[in-house]
């Protein structure tokens, strides 16, 4: 299996090269699709295997290894990448840079997941970061997209540096994972390594306060790349987090390491869900919803660490299963939603909900797929997002079993945050569907949109199929993660699965998605029959009543767009109640004057508070450092020589200090 995967990685590299030379851009996408299918297959089959590549520095060949945890995340990667690559083949990517970057991006992610030693992991992670940056930058030679790419590069560099430091503290360069497991770090080294890995992987995953790049960079890329970045790339960062915190650091580490991860996860979930309600670009809404889901997964990982530290491994298994299952479900529905958003942007000509509307009539396939994805993202039963949230909430409800009062209070607060994030995510998704697909068209372009066709249709159907499978087969799929749960938590624990349903032990709670769907369908069919028996005549079409508003003038065939809810208007109640938590808001109102024909206007400008709190001080510090450095140029010759000498002596002293055993 691993040799096939290694060959696939090599093939992707070759495709990337060919793409860079301008050859066969379409075949690069098809090749990526084939590789993605292979990744998904490897994820399903799993199986421990190790393979040393004939590459790398002397004495430390790059090592690939496939274990249950890598297999699970490979499955996630495959599920996202297969439809995304098909969409890329259908014309989702264009130009040499994108044709080269797309296979390299995929190869980087797979290499990071398959890495069996620290060097390979870093190599894959950095290839993933750089390729995705190139894909964002290639689409935008200038303007806001270019600025987003630059911001992304800055955060990616920070994340890479932190990860490098953290992994270097964990092990000697070139050490395989098995060697680290055999001698896990202790004391301050362990704490520093954990903190650095949390910073590095966390900022790549978009955890607060390093989330600023994500809602800007993800929407700026081409549609299949956005799907990969949101659905798969952030999962690779979470994989690194899980790999280091649960596996490499050894089982003897204290449980409180979970606490910062939980707190950051809960805050990110709330923040992202809230921002998803206020964004005005459908891809940005989806990117903010990614923040929300990432927060939920990080929260579950932190909870699993807390439970593991308190020797409650059955509960730790529930929380860890919640994280793994939600990672898969999020990959499935977020990939689907991004593909739908791309289809809307292409066919209806805009990503602004205020220029869309009523697309369900002309784009039934895209609308149906988006509805499925949105219901999953809203964590409604029996759709895909609910199973993971259900497991997480069940684990949180059992949090009182931790004997520590502080941990109990943290868990109660995290429960409230997770519940609010779930409700906010549902609100954001309903707003998205309602504004884009329901109602009346807001522009002629939206009224003349056409449905997805050809290969794009296949990609959408495939992604919808994955989404439905993740919902209905949650039990058997989680059964695949049993090995990963057992490996990370020690032998006794396993995934909480019983047949087709999720089940927390014999007397515990149970959730059977297929049964819920069946019951809903049965009840709806019975209702439909009962209502039919009443014998009302068939429905008739008429103008909307709209509380007796006068009909629109003849030159507005779809009604007056101003009487439909706008993107800012639909978000107003939540923005008013919760917005100031996450956003610096500026609202400008111009009320309608009595007797005047001009409508009232409300203009809202919202900016993430993170810009003011994190980036502005950084920019000031950079400017000050620049001024200080300028002053060095005016130093007299003697001072310059003294500076050089002092630096030399300092470096030698450092070398001598480090060289001493």
């Amino acid at each position, binding site marked *: 299996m691993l040799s096939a995967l290694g060959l696939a990685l090599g093939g992707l590299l070759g495709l990337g090269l060919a793409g860079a030379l301008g050859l066969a851009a379409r075949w690069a996408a098809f090749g990526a699709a084939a590789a993605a299918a292979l990744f998904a297959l490897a994820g399903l089959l799993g199986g421990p295997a190790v393979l040393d590549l004939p590459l790398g520095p002397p004495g430390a060949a790059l090592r690939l290894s496939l274990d249950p945890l890598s297999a699970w995340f490979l499955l996630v990667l495959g599920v996202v990448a297969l439809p995304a690559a098909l969409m890329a083949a259908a014309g989702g990517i264009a130009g040499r840079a994108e044709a080269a970057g797309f296979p390299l991006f995929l190869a980087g992610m797979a290499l990071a997941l398959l890495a069996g030693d620290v060097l390979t992991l870093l190599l894959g992670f950095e290839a993933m970061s750089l390729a995705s940056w190139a894909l964002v930058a290639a689409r935008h030679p200038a303007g806001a997209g270019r600025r987003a790419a630059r911001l992304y590069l800055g955060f990616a560099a920070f994340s890479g540096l932190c990860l490098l430091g953290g992994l270097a503290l964990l092990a000697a360069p070139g050490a395989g994972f098995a060697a680290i497991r055999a001698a896990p770090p202790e004391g301050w080294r362990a704490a520093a390594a954990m903190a650095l890995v949390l910073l590095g992987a966390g900022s790549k995953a978009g955890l607060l306060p390093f989330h600023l790049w994500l809602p800007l960079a993800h929407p700026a890329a081409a549609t299949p790349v956005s799907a990969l970045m949101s659905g798969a790339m952030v999962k690779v960062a979470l994989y690194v987090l899980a790999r280091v915190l649960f596996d490499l650091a050894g089982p003897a580490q204290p449980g409180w390491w979970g606490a910062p991860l939980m707190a950051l996860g809960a805050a990110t979930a709330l923040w992202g869900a809230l921002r998803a309600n206020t964004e005005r670009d459908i891809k940005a809404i989806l990117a903010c919803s990614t923040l929300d889901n990432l927060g939920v997964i990080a929260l579950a990982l932190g909870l699993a660490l807390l439970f593991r530290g308190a020797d409650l491994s059955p509960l730790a298994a529930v929380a860890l299963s919640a994280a793994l299952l939600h990672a898969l479900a999020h990959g499935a529905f977020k990939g689907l939603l991004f593909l739908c958003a791309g289809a809307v942007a292409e066919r209806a000509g805009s990503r602004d909900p205020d220029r869309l509307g009523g697309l369900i009539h002309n784009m039934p396939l895209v609308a149906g797929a988006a509805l499925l994805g949105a219901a999953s993202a809203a964590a409604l039963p029996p759709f895909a997002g609910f199973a993971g949230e259900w497991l997480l909430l069940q684990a949180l409800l059992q949090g009182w079993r931790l004997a520590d009062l502080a941990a109990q209070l943290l868990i109660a607060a995290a429960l409230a945050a997770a519940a609010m994030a779930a409700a906010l995510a549902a*609100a954001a998704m*309903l707003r998205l569907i309602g504004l884009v697909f329901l109602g009346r068209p807001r522009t002629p372009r939206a009224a003349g949109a056409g449905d997805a066709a050809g290969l794009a249709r296949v990609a959408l159907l495939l992604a919808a199929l994955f989404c439905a499978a993740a919902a209905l087969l949650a039990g058997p799929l989680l059964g695949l993660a049993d090995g990963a749960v057992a490996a990370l938590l020690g032998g006794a624990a396993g995934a909480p699965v019983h047949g087709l349903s999720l089940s927390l032990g014999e007397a515990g709670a149970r959730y059977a998605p297929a049964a819920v769907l069946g019951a809903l369908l049965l009840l709806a069919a019975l209702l439909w029959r009962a209502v039919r028996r*009443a014998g009302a005549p068939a429905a008739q079409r008429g103008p909307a009543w709209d509380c007796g508003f006068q009909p629109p003038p003849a030159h507005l065939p779809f009604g007056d767009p101003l009487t439909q809810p706008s993107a800012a208007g639909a978000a107003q109640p939540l923005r008013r109640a919760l917005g100031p938590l996450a956003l610096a808001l500026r609202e400008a109102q111009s009320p309608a004057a009595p007797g005047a024909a001009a409508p009232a206007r409300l203009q809202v400008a919202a900016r993430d508070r993170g810009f003011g709190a994190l980036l502005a001080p950084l920019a000031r510090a950079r400017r000050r450092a620049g001024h200080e450095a300028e002053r060095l140029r005016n130093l007299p010759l003697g001072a310059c020589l003294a500076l050089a000498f002092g630096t030399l002596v300092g470096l030698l002293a450092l070398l001598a200090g480090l060289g001493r055993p």
Partner: protein
Amino acid sequence: MMALLGALLTQLLHGALLLAAAPLLLGLTRTAKARLMGRRGPPLLQPWRDALRLLRKRPILAEHASVATRAAPYLALSATLLAGLLVPGFAQGMILAPFADLLLIAGLLGLARAALVLAGLDAGTAFGGLGAGRETAFAAFAEPALLVSVLVLALLAGSANLDAIAALFREGGQGLRVSLLFAALALCAVALAENARVPVDNPATHLELTMVHEAMLLEASGRHLALWEAQAALKLAVWLALLAAVFLPFGMAPAGAGPLSWLIGAALWGAKLAGLAFALAAFESAIAKMRVFRVPEFLGAALLLALLAAALLFVSTGLA
């Protein structure tokens, strides 16, 4: 085998009783409220008659309405009905009891809410969008209050299964606790918000600007309106049954009991629901509707009460 048959029979009986009780409870609330305000009010069976008349009428669909307008009422009513089948009523140990998880019930009610919101946005009218935005915003505050209350119940009963919670509370296993009172207050506030009752929303209002729930139904007519009204009535019944199952669990027929205790349980259940409906009417007559922007404060207070209840419980179990 007999036990399974009994479980199935109680489940079917429960469903039938719930469907019968829903319009009656709504009628009782309306009549009691009218009497308390010095009016005669409609007859008790008026909601039932309205539904039957609406079912025979021809529905009118708005020009730009899509399949969402037609399908949403069926989805919402089936989700609410499934949630109702999971809430124990006159008897315990119904056949769906192992799945009667409070999180699933909350999820199903959320599914019904999502269907309602989509139906409200479907015709592309101003008031539908207004109501949809407000409904989802209220839910963002109601959901955490609900789940933290569930945490309190799960902590006392050891599980979030409603049947298990009811069984334990019926035997008095939880004792008398302050935190239970706080959780009850929080759950009542959530129930008021979820059912669009005063002080959060006025179910009898005719002023569109203040509407939340009704604003999403302005374009519904005929059988669709009948289904939506039935859904609202059933949701009220489900919430009252939930409150009764948790906080007034006495007299429920235990699992595997015979028809005699079913009869007693059913009579007591009816009395409990009627009492709760009357209490709702009395509360609504005594209080004014609050401004829309105050609702987050109201529900935020419920969340804080629930968190306080959880914290008290943590401290007291830690000391014990």
